[in-house]
C-alpha cells in the first residue's frame, strides 16, 4: 500500500475551485514533485497535506491512518517554506532544537541530535549564529535541518529554492536530492520550475487549474507529455496544425507535406489534429531526407552557447524553433533567409486532438 494516499481531494475558496478531485499515491521514500504554474493549486494541495488548510472534500491517508481532519500537530511531517520562517531571535542551534525541546528529551540527547543535523548539513561552525548572519543557502539548510530534526515520516518543501540566486539554486538542488535519497524520507516538493522537477524528482505530478493532469517519471513527462499543456509547460515544444490523412497508416497532412507517425491516431480521416515536436528532435538538412520533411525558412539565428537556436518560418504563419550544434551551423553555412528542410523523426512526433493546443 502507498505511504501517502490523496483521494479525490477538492478545495473550494468561496467561488473558486482551487483543487478539483485530486488523487495521487506516493510510495514510501519517494521524492514527488507538484509542478505547475502559479495558481494551479499545488501549494494549496501541500498545505492540505500538512493540515494548514482543510480539504472541502476527499481524504488523505498517511501510513494507513486517515489524517484528513487532524490538526498539523497530530500529523507526522516536517515542512520548509519558501521564506524558511526561521525564528530570527533564536540561534541556529535553538532553531533546529525547537521541535525537540518540546518533547522533554534529556538535554544531551537533544544536543547530540542537533549536532548530528548540523554535521549532516555542513553547518558545524554555525550553531551559535543567528539566521540573519547566514547566507541564503545556509538559512535554507537550517530550515531543512529543523524540519528533519523530529524525524518526520513526510517532508514537505514549499518552493524552498525560489528565494535563492541561480547558482546557489543549482548547488542546493543536487544537495537536497542527495540528502533525500540518503535519508529515504518520503518527500513532496512544490515548484513551478520544470528544471528542478526534472533533475530532482522520482516522479512529477503536473498540475493545471486545480487538477493533476499527468503523473510520471521525469523522462516520461518530458518525452511523452499527456497533454499539450504538459508538453508546453515542461520544456519547449513546437505545435503544428494538421489533418489526419490516414489513421491506419498513421499519416497526417501538414500543409502539402505528409508526415508519418509512430504513435496511434485516435481521430478519423479528415479530422484536424495538433502535432508536437521538441526543438532538439528536429533534424535540419539542406537536402538529405525526403520522407517526413517540411520546408522552412530561417528567420533568425540565436547563439545560445552550447548550441544555436533557429527561428523558422513555415508557409504563411507557421513558426517553429529548432536547435542545431555549432559545428553543423558552420558546416552548412545556415544564416538568416536560408531555405532548409526539417526532418521530423516519426518516433518523436506526438499527436493531440486539435482543440487542446495551448494558447488556442
Amino acid at each position, binding site marked *: 500500500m502507498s505511504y501517502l494516499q490523496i483521494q479525490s481531494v477538492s478545495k473550494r475558496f468561496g467561488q473558486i475551485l482551487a483543487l478539483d478531485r485530486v488523487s495521487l499515491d506516493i510510495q514510501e521514500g519517494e521524492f514527488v514533485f507538484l509542478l505547475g504554474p502559479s495558481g494551479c493549486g499545488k501549494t494549496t494541495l501541500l498545505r492540505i497535506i*500538512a*493540515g*494548514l488548510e482543510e480539504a472541502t472534500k476527499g481524504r488523505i491517508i498517511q501510513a494507513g491512518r486517515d489524517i484528513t481532519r487532524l*490538526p*498539523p*500537530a*497530530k*500529523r*507526522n*511531517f*516536517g*515542512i520548509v*517554506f519558501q*521564506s524558511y*520562517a526561521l*525564528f*530570527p*531571535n*533564536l540561534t541556529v542551534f535553538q532553531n533546529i532544537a*525547537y*521541535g*525537540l525541546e*518540546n*518533547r*522533554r*528529551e534529556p538535554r544531551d*540527547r537533544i544536543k*547530540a*541530535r542537533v549536532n*548530528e*543535523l548540523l*554535521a*549532516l548539513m*555542513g553547518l*558545524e561552525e554555525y550553531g551559535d549564529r*543567528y*539566521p*540573519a*548572519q547566514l547566507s541564503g543557502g545556509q538559512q535554507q539548510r537550517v530550515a531543512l535541518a*529543523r*524540519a*528533519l*530534526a*523530529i*524525524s*518526520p*515520516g513526510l517532508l514537505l518543501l514549499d518552493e524552498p529554492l525560489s528565494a535563492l540566486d541561480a547558482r546557489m539554486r543549482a548547488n542546493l538542488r543536487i544537495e537536497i536530492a542527495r540528502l533525500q535519497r*540518503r*535519508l529515504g524520507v518520503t518527500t513532496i516538493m512544490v515548484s513551478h520550475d520544470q528544471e528542478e522537477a526534472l533533475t530532482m524528482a522520482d516522479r512529477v505530478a503536473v498540475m493545471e487549474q486545480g487538477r493533476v493532469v499527468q503523473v510520471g517519471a521525469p523522462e516520461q513527462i518530458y518525452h511523452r507529455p499527456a497533454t499539450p499543456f504538459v508538453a508546453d509547460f515542461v520544456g519547449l515544444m513546437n505545435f503544428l496544425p494538421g489533418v489526419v490523412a490516414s489513421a491506419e497508416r498513421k499519416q497526417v497532412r501538414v500543409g502539402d507535406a505528409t508526415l508519418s507517425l509512430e504513435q496511434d491516431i485516435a481521430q478519423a480521416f479528415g479530422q484536424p489534429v495538433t502535432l508536437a515536436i521538441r526543438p532538439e528532435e528536429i533534424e535540419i538538412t539542406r537536402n538529405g531526407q525526403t520522407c517526413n520533411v517540411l520546408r522552412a525558412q530561417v528567420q533568425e539565428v540565436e547563439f545560445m552557447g552550447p548550441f544555436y537556436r533557429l527561428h523558422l518560418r513555415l508557409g504563411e504563419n507557421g513558426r517553429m524553433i529548432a536547435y542545431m550544434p555549432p559545428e553543423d551551423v558552420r558546416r552548412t553555412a545556415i544564416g538568416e533567409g536560408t531555405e532548409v528542410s526539417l526532418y521530423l523523426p516519426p518516433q518523436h512526433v506526438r499527436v493531440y486532438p486539435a482543440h487542446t493546443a495551448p494558447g488556442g
Partner: protein
Amino acid sequence: MQTTLARQTPLPDARPARLNLNEEHLKRLLIWLALAWLLLGIVLPLLPLVQRSLSDRHGHWVGLANYRRYFSTPALSISLTNSLSVSVATTVVAVALAFGYAYALTRTHMPGKRYFLLAATLPLYVPPLAHGIGLVYLFGRKGLITTGLGGLWPGWDINLYGFNGILLGELLYVFPQAVMILMVAASLADARLYEASESLGASPLRTFFTVTLPSLKFGLVSAVFVTFTLVLTDFGVPKVVGGNYNVLATDIYKQVIGQQNFEMGATISILLLIPTVIAFIIDRIVQKKQMAALSARAVPFVPRPRRWLDLAAFIYCLLITMAIIGVMLTVFLASLVELWPYKLDLTLKHFDFSTVGGGGYGAFWNSVRMSLYTALVGTAITFGSAYLIDKLKPLRPVRAAAYFFSMIPVALPGMVIGLAYIFFFNPLHWKIGGLSIPNPFSFMYGTMAILVLSTIVHFYTVSFMTAMTALKQLDREFESISESLGVPFYRTFWKVTLPLSMPALLETAMYYFVNAMVTVSAVVFLYSPRLKLASVAIINMDDAGDTAAAAAMSVLVILTSVGVRLLYDLATRSIARRAQAWKSW
C-alpha cells in the same frame, strides 16, 4: 559528515510524548475571551447610552423627545454649531501649520531637525487643561501679554475666553498628531518621481503641485479627520478657556455633573458621536487607498540643500517651537512664582496642595498608579487580543468581529466612554424592557479597575493597530512551523512572537502611560471622591480659582511623563542591544 546517518541517535517517539488534546480548545477559549472583553469594554456599555437618550428621567421610553428638546432649546443647540465651527477652524489652521512643519522636517535640509521633531511632540506630555492654563497666564484677563507685562508695554487683549482661546489651546493639543501623520505620509515619498519631474524640466513650484501634494493627499485627508475628531471631542481646553462659548463636550459635562440630567447628557453624546463616526469611516477608507498606492519599490527621497528654502523652513519651525515651548514654560514659571505676573519671587508654595481642593499628592500618586496599571494591563490585553485575532486560525467570524470592535474606540469621545460606563457599570440591576437583570460588574464602579478599563478602551485602537503592524511584520508561517513540529502555540508565542515584538510592546506601554497621565474626559465621570486623579484635580483647582496650584499639578504630570519617557529611552537603548542582538546583523 558524509558518513553520518541522520537517524543514528536514538530518537524520541515520532510524535511528542504529551499530545496536547486541549490545544485547539484552548485557542477557541482564548478567542472567545478576547471577544468577551471587547464586548464588555466597548460594545455593551454603548447600549444603555442609546437607551437613555431615548428615555425620560424615570426610564420611560420617549422616542426622540430628548433630541427634539435639544434642537428646540437654543441654549443647548448653539453648542453643536459652536463645536463644529471651532473644530473646522482649528483643523484648517492646525493642518496648514503642521503641513509646513512636516514639510520642513522631511523635505528640506535645515539644521536642527532632531530638536524640532522633539519640540513638536512635547505637547503630547501636557494635559490639554495645562495648555489652557498656559494661555490664561499669557492672554487671560490678567495675562502677561494682555496687561503688557504688568503695564510695561501696551497691553494686547486677544479676547481669549471663547472661540479664540479654544482655537489656540486645541492647536497646541492636536499639533503633534497632525505633524506625525503628515511626516509618515511624507516619508513614503518616491524619489524617482522627483527625479523624473526634474529631468523633464519642471519648475520646483510645478513639482510641488504635481508630485508633492498628490503624494501627500492621503496623509492630508487623514490628518484633517484625526484633527477634527480630536478637537471636536476634547474637553480640557474648552473647560479652561471656553468661557461662555459652549461646545458639545463641555455641555455633556454640565448636563451630567452640573444638572444631573443624564438623559440630556446621553442625547448630546449621541450627537457628538455622529460626526466622529463619519470622520472615522472616511479616514478608514482613505487609509485603505493609501496602502494600495504604496509601492514597495519606492526609493526614499533625500532632500538636497537649498539655501533660502532651508532658512525659511528653519525660521518657520523656530517660531512654532517657541510658541509651543513658550506656553509650556509659562505654566512652569507660573507654578514657581508668588503671584503671576505681579509678584515674581520664586516659591514652591504652590506645590503644597494641602490648602487647596482637588486631592493634592494623593491624587497625583493615584494618577501615577492608574497610568502604570493602564500601561501594564493595557499592553498585555492589547497585544494578546491582536495576537489572537491575527495569528490563530479557528473561529474566523469571531476574530473578524473582534477586529471590527477593536476599531470602534477611536471614534468614541472620552466623554461618551465615561458616560456610557456610568450607565453600564453603576446600576445594581440593568433594566431591559420590563426585565431586571442583576449587574455582575457593578462592584467595579468607583474603583481603580473602572478607571483603568475606561482608559485602556479610550486609547485602545491606536495601540491595537501598533500591535497589529508589529505582528504582521513577522513571518506568517511561524505558527505553521511550530504546529508541524508539534510545539504548542503558546510556547511559540512566548519564545518567538513576544521577544520579536518587544519594541512595539514597550512603545505601546509608553503610549498608554503618557495618555493615562494626562487624560481627563472619560475619567472625570468615573473617579470617586476617595480616588481622585491629578488631571481631574487640575480642573477642580482651576474651577476653584487656584490656578497656580493647577499649574503646579500640571508641572508634576508633565515632569512624570517626560521623565518616564527619558528613562524608557535610556533603558531601551541598553536593553535593545542585548535583547535584540540578532537585529544588529
